[in-house]
């Protein structure tokens, strides 16, 4: 197999995001997808690929390119595989409510370590940066905010300075697509203020306890009372959650695009998907406004990515 080409997509949630895990947990009727070993929320690769393919359908992407990238439809699935490999969307920043500032964008060493590994895999080496140790009960933040106790949900943390926070802010910003009308500097300032590093165990706990769960009812118009069985609790990632997904392209296998390199195919596919606007709808409940992500493209030659 010849060379593969990679791109990383930053997915910044504009609206609540519910990628359903199926099944029912104790109190939550509709839980979100999680990684089994860590309890970190995620969006499975199959759901991500479906979201990308649905966007291709909606935009009317040229049929041959679509088939080459995503594979033929089910009836012709034996012809050839698609050239695009779509990873799970992995969590990087989780918004957690706080008593200092409305919320903090919280992450942990294990997530940062994995981000560096995924960047290396995608050919985005960049400068080496250290991942600090953080003790239980301590939260690392940008230097200027060390005075008071930091509450994340109902848990008290002692803030301490995060020495390399600026390098991490820049690295994370590359995964956040800009919005026309909002100054990039304001986004940087907000991220610097909100970025908070806690230990892995505390983070896993937040991944269980700090994710919004909303009750839903369906009310009958005739009686103005709840319809039978139509009360359910649904979990969703809050807006401002940052996930990322690694796309890899293999050299095309379809007859029509044999002459394209994997890099050309990936570029053409992503242009077709996102030239119209940096948005992707991921997960369920589209018609109640959920799942809209702002998409940043981070390729080895792309703007914002280090070669």
């Amino acid at each position, binding site marked *: 197999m010849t060379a593969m080409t990679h791109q990383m997509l930053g997915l910044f949630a*504009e*609206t*609540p995001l519910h990628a359903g895990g199926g099944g029912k947990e104790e109190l939550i009727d509709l839980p979100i997808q999680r990684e089994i070993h860590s309890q970190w929320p995620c969006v499975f690769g199959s759901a991500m690929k479906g979201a990308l393919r649905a966007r291709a359908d*909606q935009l009317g992407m040229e049929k041959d390119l679509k088939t080459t990238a995503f594979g033929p439809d089910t009836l012709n699935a034996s012809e050839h595989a698609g050239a695009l490999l779509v990873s799970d969307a992995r969590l990087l920043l989780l*918004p957690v*409510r*706080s*008593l*200092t*500032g*409305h*919320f903090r964008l919280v992450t942990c060493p294990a997530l940062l370590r994995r981000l560096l590994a995924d960047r290396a895999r995608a050919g985005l080496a960049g400068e080496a940066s250290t991942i600090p140790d953080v003790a*239980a*009960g301590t939260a690392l933040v940008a230097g200027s905010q060390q005075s008071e*106790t930091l*509450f994340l*949900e*109902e*848990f*008290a*943390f002692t803030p301490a300075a995060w020495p390399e926070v600026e390098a991490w802010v820049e690295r994370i910003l590359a995964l956040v697509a800009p*919005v*026309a*009308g*909002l100054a990039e500097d*304001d986004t940087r300032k907000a991220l610097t203020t909100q970025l908070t590093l806690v230990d892995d*165990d*505390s983070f896993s*706990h937040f991944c269980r306890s700090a994710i*919004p769960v*909303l*009750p*839903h009812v*369906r*009310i009958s*118009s005739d009686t103005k009372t709840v319809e039978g069985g139509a009360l359910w609790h649904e979990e969703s990632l*809050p*807006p*401002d959650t940052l996930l990322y997904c690694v796309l890899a392209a293999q050299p095309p296998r379809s007859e029509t695009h044999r002459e394209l390199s994997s890099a050309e195919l990936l570029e053409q596919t992503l242009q077709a998907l996102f030239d*119209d*606007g940096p*948005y992707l709808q991921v997960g369920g*409940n*589209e*018609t*109640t*406004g*959920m799942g*809209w992500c*702002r998409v940043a493209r981070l390729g080895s030659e792309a703007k914002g990515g280090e070669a």
Partner: protein
Amino acid sequence: MTGLPLYAEHRAPASFPARGQGHPGLWFERFFAQYARDFSLGNEAKSDFLKTLCAPGPGALRVGDPDALKAHWMRQAALMAHRGGRQCAFSSRWHFATGLGLPHPVENGLLFHPTLGVPYLPGSSVKGLVRAWIEQHLAEPEAALKRIFGSRSKDPAASDEFVAGEVLFFDALPVEPVSLVIDTMTPHMGQWYEQGAEQPGIRETLPADWHDPVPVPFLAVKQTSLAFPFAPRVRRDDTPALLALVEEMLERALWHAGAGAKTAAGYGSFAACDDDVVKKLDDWTRDIEQAWEEARERQALAALSPSQQRLAWLERAVQESVNQNPSSGGDFRNALLADVREAAVHWPEADRDALLALVQSFLKTHGSKNKLKEFKQLRRELWGD
């Protein structure tokens, strides 16, 4: 985990840190500390706690950060522009309550947005509100219902035309900080609701007016303005008409039926925004349109070849009076001639001809006779015509 505030060594603050812009929803849901030693709730306990979020007095609390709410509105506007949707704003005429059914020690909850810290109306509520209005008030609602909300049955096997609705309803959020207020409800027929069916006909369980009212304080939102974004899921020829229908139905449902809880008691009725809110949103709209315009121009410029970019720049530069002025524009005229020399070697023919025409007409109007002569000589040298 350390620092569980429920235990002896907790570090929970004594009061809500209003000035630090903490999350009021977090305080409201997780820091209730008004139980007596035997875990009973005294008469004043509930309202004492609610007062931590809305006591009048110096620095009375308005929840929400104006800059964050503006940024959210602008992000939604960008998303709506991408989707071909719109966001309509309405102001509540009086109080508004959302999420009263959420569990809370004071009996009634209030739904706060997880990141913005303000009460809001989820997109699913907006969708339900519009649906209920259409079901009850449109003469023949079936076609509209199916297009806007999708097939009635949620079972794929039950229906041949199993489709999702064509309209996306997003969360409705305040456009400016919100004042909270303590309201009191006085239910006095609790026994009727709890036991009326099992033990009918006895004095205690009758729904009558001789029972003592039980005052229950709860948190509500003072008059506020919400932005309701909605957008088409698919675009068809008649989508604008469909969106207009949705907007009309939303407006009527908000005004007549009301949004959120306790609408029968006058809560949650929304009408057109006050003038100052309209003006603020107009200003924001202008800001964002200007930013889009600039972004488009930058993009268009970046897509041009170097010679086209230079031409575009020159076309603007020849309009500026400082370049047209005979005494100050000397450098500019020399630069024009330098461009002509450059164009002779490197520019594509079409751009070169455009440049020659531009330079000639500029020098004719604003140049000295000498410069025009110099230009013509240069042109002869380079092209021999």
